[in-house]
Each structure stands twice: as structure tokens, then as C-alpha cells.
């Protein structure tokens, strides 16, 4: 219900008339602050402490992205839902090696499940699907450390990405996954989508009692809110990849939506708008939840994932990761 705002143009956010205004050189728009949950900022935006103070009153999170669309950081207002009990228990699950591997395995399992789900409908990718299944089935039972798990996940992901060439348009040929910086359009798309998901997950964690810096699959010492990296693993193939497939196969995004420079590549403003719009539609799509017996949006499923983790930490119910059944 609460809206997410995306700002791709340049301008100024300011507090005026006890609400928020976004002003560009040509137009001025008031924002219905009561209904906003988070704001993603891609353009060059000015704002001052007066605006920040007002924003934090409403618990709105600001996510900032740099010129190339990479996640730069967030402004997170004082956390209102805190529970020392949950944080302590969360940390205990990190310290206990067995418990930590269990959770890390859950995240990877769900990620692999969703990757296979993406390929299942495509005839061209059948060989790759079998390869992933082999790799996964052989590896999954002899994992004794997190780094082994990471290695297995990396191998699966490599096969997964190499299957993209079979069903995506030729313009978007991918030799290999490259990050920081992406050098070709498809890598740029994946990176951009992942950073959006990453911050969306962070917003959902913020609304629960979880501590975003204690993670299980990723090392928590990475100076980042790494729990949201963990949870994003589940949703990256489920949400981002299917949005990319749709946009490319319907030719909604073509090569003209990219700016290419000497050794990197990124979406231009027009391309970002198309991508964001599609991702937003996806996040708002609802699917009937079998236990709750009501419709839950993809975004809602992210929140539910956080709640399931809390239940696991306090010993209420063992965590079982989301596996899309629809």
C-alpha cells in the first residue's frame, strides 16, 4: 500500500507547507508524504537537514545511487522496531557454526530453486537446467563450510548465466558475469536490478526487528548491511531476472537504452525509467498465499521472509525459505 518513489531527474527535495516538494527547473510537485515508504534517488538531488528531519519523522528511507546506478547508501531514520532479544538470538545463530550453515544453505537452496524455475519453461535451456541440477545435487550434501557453499553457489550461477545466451536477443550476448563495472548491457541490467532489490530488502528488514548487519551466507564484516544481501539471494532470480527476460524478449529495452563508454556500460535515464517501471509492477503483483489465505505482493513476500527468520531465531518455527509454487 505504501508507495515507493523513484527520482531519476535532477532537482531539489524540500520541505514546504508541511509536506515534501520535488522541484526541478521546469516543474514543482508536491509529494503526499503520508503515503510514502521509501524514495530511491538516481538523479542529482539537493536536500537539506530540514527536509531530512521531516522525512525521518515519517520513517521514510532514502536510497542513494551513484551516476552509474550503483547503490551508494541509504538514509535510514531512527529504527522504531527494535528488540534486543531478537538481535541477541540472531547473533547466536551466527556464532554457532551448524546453525549458521543451515541458514546459509537455506538461502542458496531457494536461490538455486528459483534459478531452475526461470529456466524450466525454456526449451533452449534444457541442457543447462540439467547441468545445474547435477552440480547442485552432487554438491549439496557434502558442504562443511560456508566457503564451500559459496563455491558451489558460484558454479551453479555460472552455468545459469551462461544459459542466458540461448534465449535472450543476440544483442545481449553475455560472455561472463562482470561487476564493478559492468562492461556490457546485460551485465549492466543485472547489476542495476540487483542493487534495486538490495535496497528494497533493506527497507523491509528495517520494518522488522532484525539487525541488518548480522548475516549468515555473506560475512557480516563486509561493512555493509549484509543480511539484505543474504535475503536478496532468494529474490534476485525470482524478481530481477524475470523482469530482465521480459523486457529484453519483448524488446522494451534495446541497445539504444545504454550508454557505453571505454570500459563500462550503464543504463541511460530512459532505460532506467522503463526498467524501474517494470520492476515496480512486478513488486506489486500479488499471489495468493496458501497459509495466510490472502493475496500477498512480491514485496510482501520479502517482508514475510524476514518474519520467518525472526520466528526461526526465537525458536518458534524452523525456517524454510520461499520456493515459488506458482
Amino acid at each position: 500500500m505504501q508507495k515507493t518513489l523513484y527520482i531519476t531527474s535532477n532537482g531539489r527535495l524540500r520541505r514546504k507547507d508541511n509536506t515534501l516538494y520535488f522541484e526541478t527547473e521546469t516543474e514543482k510537485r508536491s509529494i503526499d508524504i503520508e503515503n510514502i515508504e521509501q524514495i530511491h534517488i538516481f538523479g542529482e538531488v539537493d536536500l537539506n537537514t530540514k527536509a531530512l528531519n521531516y522525512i525521518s519523522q515519517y520513517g521514510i528511507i532514502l536510497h542513494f545511487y551513484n551516476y552509474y546506478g550503483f547503490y551508494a547508501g541509504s538514509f535510514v531514520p531512527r529504527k522504531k522496531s527494535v528488540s534486543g532479544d531478537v538481535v541477541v538470538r540472531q547473533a547466536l545463530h551466527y556464532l554457532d557454526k551448524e546453525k549458521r550453515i543451515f541458514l546459509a544453505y537455506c538461502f542458496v537452496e531457494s536461490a538455486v530453486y528459483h534459478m531452475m524455475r526461470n529456466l524450466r519453461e525454456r526449451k533452449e535451456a534444457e541442457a543447462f537446467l540439467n547441468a545445474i541440477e547435477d552440480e547442485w545435487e552432487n554438491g549439496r550434501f557434502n558442504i562443511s563450510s560456508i566457503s564451500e557453499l559459496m563455491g558451489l553457489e558460484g558454479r551453479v550461477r555460472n552455468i545459469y548465466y551462461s544459459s542466458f545466451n540461448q534465449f535472450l536477443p543476440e544483442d545481449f550476448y553475455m560472455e561472463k558475469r562482470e561487476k564493478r563495472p559492468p562492461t556490457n548491457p546485460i551485465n549492466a541490467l543485472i547489476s542495476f536490478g540487483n542493487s534495486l532489490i538490495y535496497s528494497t530488502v533493506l527497507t523491509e528488514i528495517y520494518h522488522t526487528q532484525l539487525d541488518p548487519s548480522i548475516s549468515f551466507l555473506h560475512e557480516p564484516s563486509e561493512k555493509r548491511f549484509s543480511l539484505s544481501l543474504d535475503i536478496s539471494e532468494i529474490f534476485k532470480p525470482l524478481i530481477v531476472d524475470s523482469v530482465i527476460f521480459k523486457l529484453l524478449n519483448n524488446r522494451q529495452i534495446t541497445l539504444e537504452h545504454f550508454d557505453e563508454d571505454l570500459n563500462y556500460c550503464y543504463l541511460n535515464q530512459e532505460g532506467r525509467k522503463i526498467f524501474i517501471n517494470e520492476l515496480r509492477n512486478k513488486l506489486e503483483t500479488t499471489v495468493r498465499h496458501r497459509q495466510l489465505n490472502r493475496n500477498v505482493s512480491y514485496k510482501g513476500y520479502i517482508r514475510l521472509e524476514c518474519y520467518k527468520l525472526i520466528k526461526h531465531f526465537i525458536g518458534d518455527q524452523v525456517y524454510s525459505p520461499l520456493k515459488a509454487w506458482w
Partner: protein
Amino acid sequence: MFVIVTYDVNEKRVNKVRKILKKYFTWVQNSVFEGEITYGKLEKCKRELFSVIEKDEDSVYFYEMEYKIVCNKKILGQEKNYDSVIL
């Protein structure tokens, strides 16, 4: 729920009313706001308005719909996209 708000208020208070409505809804036309909102927030908005308006002089109309789809919005002439979430 989806709500359309129109108001006819004495000039002295018209700005106060407008500023309150701006926090909750998107501005559509002069004296008209619309938007999706929760029951709780709508109630909060009404209370705020009630403390500002003069009961026997001003009026604010709320057209409340359970779902946005129920409202069959048709536009003649210019459509101004004030409620887009991508700026």
C-alpha cells in the same frame, strides 16, 4: 481505498485545507485531490481538516471507493500525470 476529495472553503482557510490535503493525496485540479489511502490515514486527515474548517460555512466532500478499479476515470483533453511515482 481510493478517495476523491473536493472542497469549497472560504478564501481565508482555503490554503490551510489545501496544505493538509497535500500531505495525504495527489493534487489533480483546483480544489480536487485524489489518491489511495488507508482507513486510518483517512480518519487522521479528516480530523486535521475538522480542526481547520468552519463547520457552518465550509464543506469538504469525500468520495470513498473500496477499490481503485471501481472508479472508472475518463479524461477529456489533457491528462496530467501528477501521481506518477517515477520523477
